[in-house]
């Protein structure tokens, strides 16, 4: 091999490596939470590298936008958000990230609330005396696994816009995800059948989509209004009503302060069910489907 042949071989090898790298370059997906991150992984497969801006055990209402989030979003191809004003904090990050692709209306922007049938959409005049109310309705729609399918479709839409060449793969994965949810939904419904119609006290109205999907009845909430802590009077009334009506379950998220629920549990004998609402809120909850397995398991006391 002469010197020129060796050079050409090296150049060709380098070009080949570059092409190979380019063909496997992953689409960078940034999501506002870990549920959407897992759904994005399901739809994008090996073609995407997904990262969530928040931790699984964060309260989605209380996130401080931080410069490190800007760094992530600046390099993203797709940005996936919950919408419905739950993640308004992300707008400050979007504004600073200098990435037009993921801005509202950009190719890589996906607001997963499109297509959702929102619950508890307030009617008439809204004012702060109603608590931290969301004008577009209750934003915790991902706790109905059926809405996970709608979110998955929104994510697939963004991936197809950014990477149209692999449309068929994303569509196929979307169909597969829908089938997985359909199968799991039957399983969860069957397991929760003994609790159907049971009265459940919630901490915050986070669980409304879940209770409606699985036929549980939201009896009342520990918070008298969204985001407002309970007064002693409210707790006393709630405890008296629970005793009278024999309410046996108090359901709340892993990140909530336990003291109010503990008192209710002590005085009424109700079972306290602490369950995650997001993937990675507990170390072994690693997928969106696994999240519902965990919630259902906790409700059944297993």
């Amino acid at each position: 091999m002469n010197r020129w042949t060796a050079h050409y071989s090296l150049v060709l090898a380098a070009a080949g490596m570059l092409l190979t790298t380019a063909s496997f370059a992953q689409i960078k997906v940034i999501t506002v939470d870990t549920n959407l991150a897992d759904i994005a992984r399901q739809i994008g497969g090996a073609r995407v590298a997904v990262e969530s801006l928040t931790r699984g055990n964060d309260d989605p209402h209380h996130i401080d936008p931080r410069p490190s989030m800007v760094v992530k979003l600046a390099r993203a191809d797709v940005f996936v958000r919950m919408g419905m004003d739950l993640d308004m904090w992300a707008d400050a990050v979007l504004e600073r990230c200098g990435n037009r692709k993921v801005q509202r209306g950009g190719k890589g922007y996906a607001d997963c609330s499109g297509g959702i049938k929102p619950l508890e959409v307030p009617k008439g005049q809204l004012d702060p005396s109603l608590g931290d109310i969301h004008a577009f309705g209750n934003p915790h729609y991902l706790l109905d696994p059926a809405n996970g399918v709608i979110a998955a479709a929104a994510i697939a839409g963004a991936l197809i816009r950014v990477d149209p060449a692999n449309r068929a793969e994303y569509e196929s994965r979307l169909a597969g995800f829908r089938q997985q949810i359909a199968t799991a939904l039957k399983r969860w419904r069957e397991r929760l059948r003994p609790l159907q119609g049971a009265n459940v006290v919630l901490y915050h109205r986070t669980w409304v989509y879940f209770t409606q999907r699985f036929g549980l009845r939201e009896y009342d909430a520990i918070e008298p209004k969204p985001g407002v802590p309970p007064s002693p009077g409210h707790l006393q009334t709630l405890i008296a009503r629970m005793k009278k009506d024999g309410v046996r379950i108090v359901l709340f998220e892993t990140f909530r302060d336990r003291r109010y629920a503990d008192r209710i549990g002590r005085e009424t004998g109700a079972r306290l069910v602490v369950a995650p609402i997001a993937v990675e809120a507990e170390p072994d909850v690693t997928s969106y489907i696994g999240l519902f397995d965990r919630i259902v398991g906790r409700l059944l006391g297993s």
Partner: protein
Amino acid sequence: MLHSRLSMPIMALAATLTLVAVRATPAAAQTDGKSEISELRKIIEDQQKLIQQLKERVEALESGRTKKEPSDELPPAEIPATPFERASGGAAFMPDLAVIGNHRGTFFVPRGYDGRNRFELGELEIALQQPLYTGMSFFATLAAGSDAGFGLGIEEAYASLSRPFKAPFDAVIGKRRLQFGKLNPLHPHAWRHVDQPAPIAAFLGEEGLFGNGSSINYTLPIANLFANVEVGLWGSAEAHAHAEEDHDDDEGHHHHAHPGVGIVGDMPAARVWLSRALGSSTEIEIGGSHAFGKADNGDNIRLTGADFTYRTYPSAFSRLQLQAEAFWHNRRDREEGTGSHTRSGHYVLLSYAPDKYYEYGIRYDNTRYPWPIEGREQSLSLIATQRLTEATLARLQLKLGDRTSDIYLPARKGFTEVFLQFIWGAGSHKHPLQ
């Protein structure tokens, strides 16, 4: 099912109406009047209850709050055609609107201080914001302050543009709080204390540093490090008109010297801001800011700032933050030829929120004032905040220290002052990234 739920009250209503019709015949009218009145009242009461039940049912059906039967049905996985789709429910084409009231009380200050021992409205703020186009949005704040006789003025009004015309940077045009340090960009209702830290009031102004102009900012493409540079050309601007500017004191001396940066006309300003995440819940930031220009008498003025922030989030609601800022104000006296005068000041704030409802802080201020104002303030503040909702809070600040100038509050050795604050907010709005 629905039919069966509704049929009972409707049938009862029909039966009662028939009964009323029968009783309304002349024969029925001849019966004892009192008992008939009583019976009719009872019927009316029952019917009102039925009507109420029907109304509630209709309302429940309309609002979608009905308890649906559990179902295994899944929606079709329809991929949306555009990225614009989002849940509807609010009014379209209306900007987000928020109204914020900031009430303040200042206690234990000497007699003669305007506002002493009064708990009053300090400022009312109306915030408007809306996306305008892909990568373009506007933000405006109208504010009415007690110091300006509640005349409504434009505190901020700017458009932010992401990569305008495919340029490799972002831009902001309009009037705004300048990105000078960590605290200045934030509106007073977003601070973690009642009063402005003394060095900011001294060198940036009582209401902070504002500018009207434009800036560009660029985030360097460095992995795992936020490195942002912002450069702007601003015309110095007041937050809103003050009721009184220059004033004569009791001895008839006219005061020209005001605290604040002191620049009039063009004011180029720049900020370098670096931040690095230390794990998923901790962030460390450092920044440097600089602005320069000329005073109204032609003196050259330079203002430099340095800031440091460490914040960590041990759990969903708890937060620990350490923040410090230092400022150096340099004025080269061209009028009198007395040379260059540099004054400096700094503050350090440590705050801890153990949960979503409470926050506690301690702040140390130490500052001089821009030349030629003499004096110094040195103080320690203890701060407690209770949040009632996301936008409503009550705050108490106890401040102890020495003050040898009476620029904002009376000069006193060993003062103890108490500030009380109540902030309420209606509507949603965002704050700039800080």
